[in-house]
């Protein structure tokens, strides 16, 4: 077994994700099978291979990655707040996080 019930619980906690008992067991079994399959990557010797995080060459991104850090008007603040679950302009309101 690659992944235990406790592993799934720990990961769900990291991801702030409530899972029911039934979901826990279903995902554990399914992810176990997936990880078992993923294990086939160990057949490959990758000790001399660089990890590839993205596909664009340096030349392609050279002109793209950095721009001047400028403030530009975007004028969507009102729209954005309007669709928030609990807005109080100009803020998003959340449950209290500090005890008095």
């Amino acid at each position, binding site marked *: 077994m690659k992944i235990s019930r406790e592993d799934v619980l720990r990961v769900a906690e990291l991801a702030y994700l409530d899972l*029911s008992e039934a979901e826990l067991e279903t995902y554990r079994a399914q992810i176990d099978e997936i990880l078992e399959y993923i294990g086939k990557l160990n057949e490959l010797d990758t000790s001399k291979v*660089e990890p*590839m995080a993205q596909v664009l060459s340096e030349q392609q991104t050279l002109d793209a990655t950095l721009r001047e850090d400028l403030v530009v008007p975007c004028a969507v603040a009102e729209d954005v707040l309007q669709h928030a679950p609990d807005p109080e302009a100009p803020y998003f309101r959340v449950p209290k996080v500090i005890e008095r």
Partner: protein
Amino acid sequence: MTANWTIDGVREALAARKISARELAAEFYKRIGTQNPQLNAYLALTPERARRQAEKIDALVSAGSNLPPLAGVPVAIKDVISTRGTKTTCGSKILENYIPPYDATAVERLEAAGAVILGKTNCDEFAMGSSNENSAYGPVKNPNAMERVPGGSSGGSAAAVAAGLAVAALGTDTGGSIRQPGSFCGIPAMMGSYGRVSRYGLIAFASSLDRIGPFATKVRDVAAILRTIAGRDPHDSTSTTVPVPDYCAGLGKPVQGLRLGIPKDYFGEGMDAGVREKVEAGIALFQKLGCELVDIRMPHTDYAIAAYYIIATAEASSNLARYDGVRYGLRVEDDSLLAMYRKTRGAGFGPEVKRRIVLGTYVLSAGYYDAYYLKGQKVRGLIAQDFRDAFTKVDAILTPTSPVPPFHLGERTSDPLQMYLADIYTVTGSLAGVPGMSVPCGKTCGKLPVGLQIFGPAFGEARVLQLADAFEKAGGADV
């Protein structure tokens, strides 16, 4: 009235004043009204927006002005792509009432070119799936066989175009989500190179893999849409300045003498016999067109699914952290902030999304990062190298798009790994960043579309489209 409109057909009809842009949009809404209740391809319609745009086009026609390239063309947009003022749900309950405050760049460019946006199309939740059965708003049906899936995740866009409910549509492809539904619905569908089309306004699933691309009924229309949406966008730092050629101008050039790689590694076990027969017939047709077939090896193909599902889920777990009930979308109330996060996410995400968040968080977590995530990235490098090596020998690569024809609704939902394994022929190109296209390549069992996939080197879209167009004109759809 012509049943199947094309971009050129729309332009000619408008210019000859046989129909107005408003009438054309109304005709499409009528078809949608009749067919969508069964098909479930559209999640939302945008008649007001369509009317305003159509009026602009009609005013240009009345004034005798030059018409923009996509004037009056009715299009559909996958519901993971932001549309200002129109709900964009990503097929998820967590964004059921989300209204974006801005348009995606691809949407903006389509409208600037004269296209009329009809509405938003159904998809697997957050584009995670290969059958459209992971939508929180019900599955889409395949217009070729209503008891079967349209493919996914862009199943609504593919079905809408195939059923004549839009002339073209935008989808997104992370591991095959444009090409596979294109194959299942029997229409051409293209994923350009990574960086070719701006992702600004595309709600992220896996940022190093996500790409926006077109569906249409003809390769020429795919080329025209891609040309419109491609090119550098300052809002997306991964969109490149590589020049965008006129893809339509390259169509019709002879393909004789082009070298096409046939990777043995894509024709192994697990392929449906009917799919194999049609794809082999498609390859033979290219030979008849004067192309040279070259046997090539892409030795890391068999590892692509494993690498893909590590990388895609890891990126997804990070990207989907933003759905926390604070700024947009669903909130499930609780007195504690952390419990509010957990309950909101637990209630808002569907099963496939939760599964991928758990898997993605796991492969990134302390102690497993090297074994899984880093290993996946290294194997990604090997797969990209397979493609680079192949393109030193050939101009393009031919493979099946999917190992299986469209399957029955519900047939594969209980086994996620089996569903993932069917992405084998598409995820390779996703990891490598190269352009890939699916073109119709006959039907198996008399009615189930088969797709032939054409890969080109990075930013070699013109060659891919040229080949697809030649194949289409030579009767590829009926091999």
